[in-house]
């Protein structure tokens, strides 16, 4: 799994005219994956965040996976560092979240985005291919050639979790982005 810093760039608001997963479907996928990994005792809860607000964790881990083919997009997950540590400890059966290493975190957060991304892929037109996950310590920012199509802000034990789907900007010459429709 790659450790990388994403390219700098600003996220735009929700797109229009571009095919994207329904927010409730994204919520369902995310909750299913979360429950499978950490159990049902501490569910993800909704969290109200103003549109366009940056992910507001003091420390964060981020991961992305790209879908290409019948549909194109990028699925990202951003986690408060303590959330990432607890998730990782749970997945690796490590007793204390304080004992989790950066390598452990990269592995677990990468698998989280892989599972969410794979299930998002199944919601969209195919056939498509899912990339291997890319993981970064810190917040994810993205190039200007994608825009946020769908964003889910959640809280786990009071700390923020964000799942986003990014799609290419509509292009009049690209049938995948729907710009000509």
């Amino acid at each position: 799994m790659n450790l990388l810093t994403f390219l700098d760039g600003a996220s735009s608001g929700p797109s229009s005219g571009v095919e994207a997963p329904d927010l409730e479907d994204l919520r369902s996928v995310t909750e299913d994956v979360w429950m499978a990994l950490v159990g049902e005792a501490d569910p993800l809860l909704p969290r109200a965040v103003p549109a366009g607000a940056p992910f507001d964790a003091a420390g964060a881990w981020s991961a992305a996976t790209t879908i290409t083919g019948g549909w194109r997009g990028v699925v990202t997950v951003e986690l408060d560092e303590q959330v990432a540590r607890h998730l990782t400890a749970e997945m690796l059966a490590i007793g204390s979240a304080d004992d989790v290493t950066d390598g452990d975190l990269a592995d677990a957060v990468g698998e989280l985005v892989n599972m969410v991304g794979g299930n998002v892929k199944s919601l969209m037109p195919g056939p498509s291919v899912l990339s291997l996950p890319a993981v970064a310590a810190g917040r994810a920012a993205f190039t200007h050639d994608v825009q946020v199509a769908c964003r889910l802000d959640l809280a786990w034990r009071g700390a923020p979790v964000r799942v986003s789907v990014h799609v290419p900007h509509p292009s009049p010459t690209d049938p995948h982005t729907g710009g000509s429709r």
Partner: protein
Amino acid sequence: MRAMIIDDSRAMRSILRRIVTGLHFETSEAEHGQAALDQMRAGVVPDVCLVDWNMPVMDGYTFITEVRSNPEWRDVTLMMVTTESEQRQIVRALAAGAHEYVIKPFTPDAIVDKLSLLGLVPAGGVRAGDGVTA
């Protein structure tokens, strides 16, 4: 019974290992298909492989085709455990020689049920609620 867990995620291997060791399997692990083939060529031939699809170096589909091309490994049971849920991909994996297919996320019971269907867990054997947890 011996299970080989093939997944590039150490966290996912850990989850699967806890499930199958709860069923009293001995386990080995590989982080991609090529590493799994290397182990098998060195004599570590499991009864069942739990195989992810998307992995670096060698993906799970290629691994399955490689295993199925070797008659000495015809008795090895192959179970895909992956986020790949497109019908086309499932059919492709089964046609290549996978016996079962589990889509992530899964519950421990889903793995136990599939292994039971494959005859690798005694009927009425250990259930997830009996101590096998993800």
